[in-house]
């Protein structure tokens, strides 16, 4: 292939455009006078008073910006729903990853509960240590990925249960929020006692929300994984 064909005029122009744009952008940003804000300190101060969470990120994610998290969960749900719609009708998906190996199957059987448990642990300790609902959920889903890889089409995922989890976890998130609002506070406000910093049962509503988030993420990612590596027939079986 000639150079002209690989690097067309359009490509060159695009490259020029992008570099010129970056130059200008950098120019503006670098030249700007920039003032530090005290937001971080303020936030940490408030965190100790209002949430008692050891992980300030969790406070932000589930409490101060709980609504954003609800939005993110929704986006996750939507995206996977959309992928589902896109994949449903494409019948070209034939090649499926799968290793028919006994060793793998046995190993997976042992590992699967551990992975799930680990995921649950990460979720439950979201307000105490790094991690939380999103991370734990993905870990749980990775357990299912392992199962798909090991057992291929013979692994029978109970879709009813899965969708029940999916539905209930998402709904739970919202219902907790509404309950909080009904209990007198704001939506997703804190209605439970804050407890002591560092204990598992502390920080009020935060861990509950993270658990719902975690379950939701786990279910969604599992569905996503299944979409990507199993045919429609196998999924419907």
């Amino acid at each position, binding site marked *: 292939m000639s150079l002209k064909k690989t690097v067309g005029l*359009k490509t060159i122009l*695009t490259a020029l*455009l*992008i570099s*010129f*744009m970056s130059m*200008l*952008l950098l*120019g*503006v940003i670098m030249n700007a006078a920039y003032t530090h804000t005290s937001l971080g300190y303020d936030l940490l101060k408030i965190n100790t008073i209002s949430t008692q969470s050891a992980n300030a990120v969790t406070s932000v994610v589930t409490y101060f910006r709980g609504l954003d998290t609800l939005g993110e969960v929704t986006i996750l749900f939507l995206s996977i729903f959309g992928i589902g719609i896109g994949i449903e009708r494409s019948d070209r998906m034939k090649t499926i990853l799968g290793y028919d190996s006994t060793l793998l199957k046995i190993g997976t059987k042992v590992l699967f509960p551990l992975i799930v448990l680990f995921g649950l642990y990460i979720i439950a300790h979201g307000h105490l240590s790094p991690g939380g609902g999103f991370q734990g959920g993905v870990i749980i889903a990775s357990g299912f990925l392992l199962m798909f890889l090991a057992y291929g089409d013979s692994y029978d995922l109970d879709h009813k249960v899965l969708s029940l989890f999916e539905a209930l976890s998402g709904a739970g998130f919202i219902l907790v929020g509404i309950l909080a609002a009904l209990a007198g506070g704001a939506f997703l406000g804190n209605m439970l006692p804050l407890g002591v910093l560092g204990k598992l049962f502390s920080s009020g509503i935060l861990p509950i929300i993270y658990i719902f988030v975690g379950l939701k993420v786990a279910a969604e990612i599992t569905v996503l994984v299944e979409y990507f590596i199993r045919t429609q027939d196998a999924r419907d079986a």
Partner: protein
Amino acid sequence: MFNFEITALGNMFFGLTVLVFVSLFFVPNKHRSVTLYSLLFASLACIFYASDLITLFIGWEIMGWSSYFLIAKTADKQTLQKYIVFNIGGAFTLLGAIILIYGACGSFVYSELDFSAVPSGQVTAITILLLLTLFVKSGIMPFHYWVVDSYSQSNDLFSAVLSAIISKTGVFAFILIFFQIITVQYLQTPILEVVAWLGVLTSIIATFKAINEDEAKRLLAYSSIAQVGYIVTILSIMGSLSLEAALYHTVIHTFVKLLLFINVAAIIYVSKQHRFSTLGGLLYKYPLNFILLVVGIISLAGMPPLGGFSSKFLIYTALLEEHKGLLLAAVLFSSASAFLYCYKLVYGIYLGQPTNPKTEAYPRIPLRFYVPQILGAVILITLGTIPGVIVPMFNGILGSVGFEPVLYRGVFVLGSDFASFNGGVVIGAFGLIFVLILLFFVRLKNRSVKPKDRLDISYCGEVPRADVNLHYGYGMGRELSRIGLIKMILSRSSHALWQRVSTLFGDLSGITQKLYTLSAQNMGLVIFAFFTILLYMGVK
């Protein structure tokens, strides 16, 4: 939102509308749509009785689109497109003018509009916009492009409405706006000059186009354009007498066109033919219709004993009083040329030889066709005999728009100090002389022989064969195109101009449409490029 006020001017136009609609109600019509006709009627009432510009505009637009749907039942796509583009365009210029007036005077209500503090440039802009609207509605060249096709292709009854009433809304608005609202002292004289000449040129050109037409309704459509052209010309003189002349001509033209369109409609109804080349020789088949048509064309041509002359006379007098000699000459020229198409109309349908072998089998014309025709004829004859009878009414209108009333000298006399005539004497003398000659003629002791059949004529000493076309209606007026000046008029058409505009927009549309099929990648590039350009401009 809707504000109304009963005015003398409104009363007159609404009265005409009521008469026309009521008389048309009797006419049998295949495409009768009660909803649309009532909408149209309501919109006309809205226009004539509005007391603010918004109400006027609402009426104007409803009139526009209800007429559109009425025409849509019979006209072809191109005609409809022409109709709507011009009429909506006209309405939008009206809206533009209204908005400009609002910006200048801060109100829409007629009585609150005061132009004394408005810069003259703005008044000129308003004037031009309003004139465009009126030109479109009244079919002043070169905005007449929609008129002829719409008139000729709409159903026969609605053509009458279009010509008799709807073209008059332009006249009404002209009087309302330029005599009552903006008033003459704020108007620019050159603009009025241009308007006057546009009006008269329109009538000249339309007259020749009418002479060249082969289709009865198209001929009448062109004639309508020409007649409204006179009205616009005379209105632009902006005097008491000229306003009276315009009002008079409006009344006359309304009834003339009502009569003529329904007359032609009756013929089309019974014969299913609408071209002169396939009509002819119906005189003894439909004598009453023929007489009514003659009444109509005598009035249309503005010949003395009938009402048409009264209005023409006023027009001339008004022009003479203002010493508009050239303008008057042009009006006279157009007026004189009108005889030709008038004759063509009557000859093409009723006189000459029948061209259609089925002529004998044509059914009778239903009596209901005569209601509007007789109404028109009665009014035209009355206005010829006692032309002064409606002067008091006009004086009321003149007074209400702040003009001096013209002198009223009894029902028989019409005119001003410049010139006046006695309609009673004219029609009486004519009638008397006619009757005397008739008596003398009948008393002559000699016998007349009847021709054996229609072909028993002096035909170069031969007897023409039955299959030779002896009807001259089709070719009538053809030789006009041999005359240099007239040939020039006839060969020009605004078609090319508007076609070019249409093509231009079509091409532009094709280009912009291409833009909307960009792929996602290219779209992204466009976005980034746009961002970069703006960023560069901002940073610089």
